[in-house]
């Protein structure tokens, strides 16, 4: 007779096995393809070759990963704090909406890669311009979603609060903000993927470490295998961070049900 715990274990195995198997099959096919057709390592290195390149890099790889993770997290934090503050202002004051929205839209159409050198001129080659580019890239999805979320509050619930207190802050704290939480997390997920791209893009200009720098360096020195190490590590990092947001969502969000 199976215990409840072991049943859950097997159900989890059943849930995660297919995607993991699909990934393994993909890697295996890739390996077989590169070996069978003797594809040049400059064009497409085999997974084993890439893995070896990563191992050879050793602690340096962790250093690059840590740098990029640090930039992603800080940029994500700064960008999302700004996003929530802007969203609050937009919903709270009509004038703010009219003033801020053009800038919001403009900030999204700025070619970030093109202005990154400018940020280097302004802020140097340290971590600051990376955080700014990351923040600039990742704040938009959160801001837009939170604005929509704050406005999703039930008008009758707003009336209910008005019946007791005229305070706009209490309304925000007790009704509008909780209403916006599912929207906030939807925004955070997109924002997290953007933050990863932001940090990598920022490292393409004036960086001396980080996964973006590794990719750029590998590209200019014809080390395709190293390039794949950088890209692969970025993908793993991105997926883990996305999953982390999912964990936070499950812990702190509520869902409209029934």
């Amino acid at each position: 007779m199976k215990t409840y715990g072991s049943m859950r274990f097997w159900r989890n195995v059943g849930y995660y096995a297919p995607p993991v198997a699909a990934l393994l099959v993909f890697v295996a096919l890739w390996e077989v393809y590169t070996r069978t057709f003797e594809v040049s390592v400059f064009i497409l290195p085999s997974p084993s070759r890439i893995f070896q390149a990563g191992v050879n890099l050793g602690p340096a790889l962790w250093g690059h990963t840590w740098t990029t993770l640090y930039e992603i997290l800080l940029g994500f934090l700064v960008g999302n704090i700004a996003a929530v503050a802007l969203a609050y202002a937009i919903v709270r004051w009509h004038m703010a909406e009219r003033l801020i929205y053009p800038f919001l839209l403009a900030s999204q159409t700025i070619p970030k890669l093109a202005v990154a050198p400018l940020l280097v001129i302004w802020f140097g080659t340290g971590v600051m311009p990376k955080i700014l580019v990351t923040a600039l890239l990742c704040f938009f999805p959160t801001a837009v979603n939170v604005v929509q979320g704050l406005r999703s509050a039930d008008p009758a619930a707003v009336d209910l609060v008005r019946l007791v207190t005229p305070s706009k802050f209490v309304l925000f704290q007790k009704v509008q903000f909780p209403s916006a939480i599912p929207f906030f997390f939807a925004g955070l997920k997109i924002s997290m993927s953007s933050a990863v791209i932001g940090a990598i893009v920022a490292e393409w200009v004036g960086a001396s470490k980080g996964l973006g720098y590794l990719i750029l360096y590998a590209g200019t020195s014809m080390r395709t295998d190293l390039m794949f190490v950088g890209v692969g590590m970025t993908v793993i990092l991105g997926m883990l961070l996305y999953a982390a947001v999912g964990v936070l969502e499950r812990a702190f969000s509520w869902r409209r049900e029934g």
Partner: protein
Amino acid sequence: MSLAANTAAPAMRTGDAISFSGVSLTYGAGTANQVQALKDISFDVPAGQFVSILGPSGCGKSTLLRLVAGFIQPNAGSVTVGSVDPLNARENGLLGVVFQQPVLLPWRNVMDNVSFLQELRHLPKAKRQEVAKRYIDLVGLRGFERHMPHQLSGGMQQRASIARALAFGPSVLLMDEPFGALDALTRDRMAFDLLDIWRRDQKTVLFVTHSVQEAVFLSDIVVVMTSRPGCVRMIRPIDLGRPRDKDQRLSPEFLQHCKVLLTELEADIGYH
């Protein structure tokens, strides 16, 4: 158009809880598409009584409630609640509202929803939960304190919303078609239970409905409104005695009241 003359004043009457005098309201006044929603509304709701506003959709019944709650202001005339204006009444916590939808906050359980308004007033947690518990019991939701709104039926959600309004401790309860979204059987049951709750927790109730039977069954006084612009067409005291029971709904007196009110309503909508 005071009702004092033609209603048998109950013993606990202490004056008029709500009073409308010459209230008119026009939406979009001064623009091309202005709509007169209310025209020269005057009537009083005596304290402690159950008064229904009966009328077809769009006759301004709900607008009347929004005026009492101070969400909107009349263009002419005045509304007073316990001799003060609605905004003051609101500040003093005199007003409770039940909407057509339960309007429970989906991220809070029943206990936290029922004690929500007291929380906004910064009542200590133990105290507000104690009050909430009393009203959860009163509306028949004992044992569901930790349930989330989506786990309750429509009728139970509306019970929770009534408990929330009562736990706030208002002296006037405004109910805007509170049973409108429920099925017919639940609706009858809720009306019956509401009377029971009202008997034990006596407040002035201003109840909006478009159901003639519901109005007669619940009320001391029924105010019939007509539409475009909304005005008072009839004020009819319902002298059926209390407490009321289900069987009364088939009594000749009950049906007579329904007939008179229905005739007024039908005259308005041009139904022959």
